[in-house]
């Protein structure tokens, strides 16, 4: 029997993905465990391994195809003893469910036409979006569609809990609100004039866009900045690294994560996430670190960072950063957490304010450590100073709480011995 290879779900919330690349061609021999394709989701690129032995008989979905529905048949393997033509003879045909192929031009054109908006919601229901044949049909109840349209929630990103994955009202209500994509009519027009060009947004780009737009629109940010004198910290780092085991190199960023973790435990009210009816308070400091990667960024999480010594912490961050750059993080490694650290010091940025990474309650923007004149007891002196800015979600964290947190953070950074306790 021929073996169908289906689009895998790489995370519980994934409904579609981009088939980035085929690593085998039709007619190639495939052994169980071989990597046969790469799938791109909103945050990561994952390898698809074959679970069977056989010969690649037919590839249905070309590399580069976006919005391939989870579960769609993407290829067929002929089993040992079968030939590709046997498979064809067995009557196995291309799946009838349309596998979407989105070309940039088509998408731009389609988006240029604004969707019909119903003035009186009573008289008509927003039509199911079956008009465009290049999008997989979304199964959702009429009520779920109505509520989603009403609250500007995109059905595309929602996993349905109803029969056969049908999106129901409860799914829409529990889904994080993601505003509907804006029209790119202006851009499309510009393309025709040849003075700009379109780049199809990757899943990651879209995820970043919707999450951060969400955050800025919904979380009332406030910003608190302090200067930290880090000469002691740099000194401590030097002596720690001198004594550290082979292969361990503690970075300034590791020490900042450690200090932030200690501060979250010291000021637990700041370790909070707004959930509407409730505010969630975390027992651990699960700190996400922003890692710039090709085409965007990702925020892998150091779980319970307060329980990790600097050496252990350093190993974790090195591993996460490396795998993040390779697009090899598992979904559960970048989902969750309560606080983010974003460090642009290496680019010489003096200070900046970051956008909160929802559902986190805060993000610390870390600038460069640089020599600056400071005044100590009326005398001018030179010290290495690092400015940090806390962006906090005012719904969950008040100004005074944020300030106390920063104070604690500054204390740990300026007296690094205390963070080693």
């Amino acid at each position, binding site marked *: 029997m021929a073996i169908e290879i289906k689009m895998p779900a790489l995370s519980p919330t994934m409904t579609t993905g981009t088939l980035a690349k085929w690593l085998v061609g039709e007619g190639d021999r495939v052994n169980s465990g071989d990597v046969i394709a790469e799938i791109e989701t909103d945050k990561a690129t994952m390898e698809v391994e074959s679970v069977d032995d056989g010969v690649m008989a037919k590839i249905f979905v070309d590399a580069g195809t976006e919005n391939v529905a989870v579960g769609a048949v993407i290829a067929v393997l002929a089993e040992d003893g079968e030939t590709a033509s046997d498979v064809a003879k067995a009557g196995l045909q291309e799946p009838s469910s349309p596998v979407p192929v989105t070309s940039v031009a088509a998408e731009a054109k389609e988006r240029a036409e604004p969707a019909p908006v119903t003035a009186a919601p009573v008289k008509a229901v927003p039509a199911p979006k079956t008009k465009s044949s290049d999008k997989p049909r979304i199964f959702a109840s009429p009520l779920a569609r109505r509520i989603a349209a009403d609250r500007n929630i995109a059905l595309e990103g929602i996993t349905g809990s109803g029969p056969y994955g049908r999106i129901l*009202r409860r799914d829409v209500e529990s889904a994080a609100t993601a505003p509907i994509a804006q029209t790119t009519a202006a851009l499309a027009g510009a393309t025709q004039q040849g003075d700009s060009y379109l780049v199809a947004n990757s899943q990651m780009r879209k995820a970043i866009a919707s999450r951060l737009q969400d955050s800025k629109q919904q979380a009332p940010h406030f910003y608190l900045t302090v200067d930290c004198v880090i000469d002691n910290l740099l000194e401590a780092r030097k002596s720690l690294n001198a004594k550290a085991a082979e292969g361990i190199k503690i970075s300034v960023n590791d020490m900042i994560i450690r200090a932030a973790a200690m501060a979250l435990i010291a000021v637990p009210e700041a370790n909070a996430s707004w959930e509407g009816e409730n505010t969630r308070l975390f027992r651990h400091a699960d700190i996400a670190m922003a890692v710039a990667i090709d085409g965007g960024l990702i925020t892998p999480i150091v779980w319970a960072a307060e329980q990790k010594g600097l050496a252990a912490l350093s190993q974790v961050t090195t591993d996460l950063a490396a795998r993040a750059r390779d697009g090899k993080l598992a979904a559960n490694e970048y989902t969750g957490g309560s606080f983010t650290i974003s460090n642009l010091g290496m680019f010489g940025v003096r200070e900046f304010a970051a956008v909160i990474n929802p559902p986190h309650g805060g993000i610390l923007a870390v600038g460069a450590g640089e020599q600056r004149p400071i005044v100590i007891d009326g005398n001018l002196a030179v010290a290495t100073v690092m400015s940090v800015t806390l962006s906090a979600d005012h719904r969950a964290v008040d100004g005074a709480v944020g300030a106390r947190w920063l104070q604690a953070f500054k204390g740990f950074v300026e007296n690094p011995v205390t963070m080693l306790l």
Partner: protein
Amino acid sequence: MTDTQFDIAVIGGGPGGYVAAIRAAQLGLKPVVIERENLGGICLNWGCIPTKALLRAAELRHSIDEMADFGITVGEVKVDLAAVVKRSRKVAGRLSMGVKHLLKKNKVTVIAAEAKLGAAKDGLRQINLSNGDMVSAKHVIIATGARARALPNIEANGKTILTYREAMVPETMPESLIIVGSGAIGSEFASFYHDMGVKVTLVEALDRILPVEDEDVSAFVQKSFEKRGIKIMTGVKLQAVTSDANGVQASIEGQDKPLQASRMILAVGITGNTENLGLEATKIKVDRGHIVTDQWGATGEAGIYAIGDVTGPPWLAHKASHEGIICVEKITGQKDVHAIGAGAVPGCTYCRPQVASVGMTEAAAKQAGHDLKIGQFPFAGNGKAIALGDDGGFVKTIFDAKTGELLGAHMVGPEVTELIQGYAIARTLEATEAELMATIFPHPTLSEAMHESVLDAYDRAIHF
């Protein structure tokens, strides 16, 4: 007994228990049902089914009175009470046999005994049986049902003061009857006994009859009952009830003269059968006569579940069956199992006129803060109802003005108990008013009133 070890032991073979056992068998488990009396439980033997047989007799009896309107002359009419009751028992017996057959077909072991929970050992719960045997099972579902609740100052004696059980098998018709409690059971008995020629007084402690139904429905049924000659007293507090050879006297707070009747039926709710199950030695909590469970039927004791009437209201067979299914599906880790949502259990009352509802009443929807669109359509505007000669009643639909969600539907009138599932399906599928309006309802049917009611909520009713 050959088999003593099972995957699931279900205590109680009523509509919750036997359905749970069949579902378990379908999922490849080895279930046992332990039933102390009759398969099918109260529902089949002493509740839903035999009362429907009685009400059918009453309805036919009533129809004869209307024959002249249809141009049919009928001779002398006689009711053979013994035969009416006998038929009702026969219907119940046939269905109980049917359950026995279904369980056998699904290879469910049935043990006729009372069960008492024993110790848990090696992941198995021991169950001691009244016949001296013992079985054990990985999971136990308590589905022991409920029985009529007694009032603190009134004791049913089975002769003059009855519960539903005796009321269902009368040997003679009383001259007059007081029915205490006007929920589904009280209202059905009021309707039945009145149609059989008994002077009925229906007494309700709350301010209206059928108090869980929408206020418009309660008002309509009350008017209809009163028109037929049923006496209704609401907001009544019974003080003391005495009985002697002549009948029953009930003294009422604030009234000098006691109510008098030949018999009384107590229909004031039910209480769970939680006794003698060995619950005391477990962490299972019992609150006001009912076992406390989570939404999947799990009790405070690992591996023991409870479903149906023993867990609390609404006391309805179809709720028990559904709980039995989701409980077993949850135990076996099936995908996409969902707890019963608020307002998802339809309720039916088979008095004349029939009453059926699903979801929220108007008052409840308002209290929940919804902006409402309400439609109402009378059966007097429905051709089929007029042709049937049964055009009293209406269909009321309640929508959320913003989302078009069908929050509730309330019906009173001909065969509405058969119609309500249409709205129940609409609610499960999360249809809005738009889908209901866009659906073609066949003509001429009673169901057209359902369509018109939806249209009326948006000022689009055609026939009214």
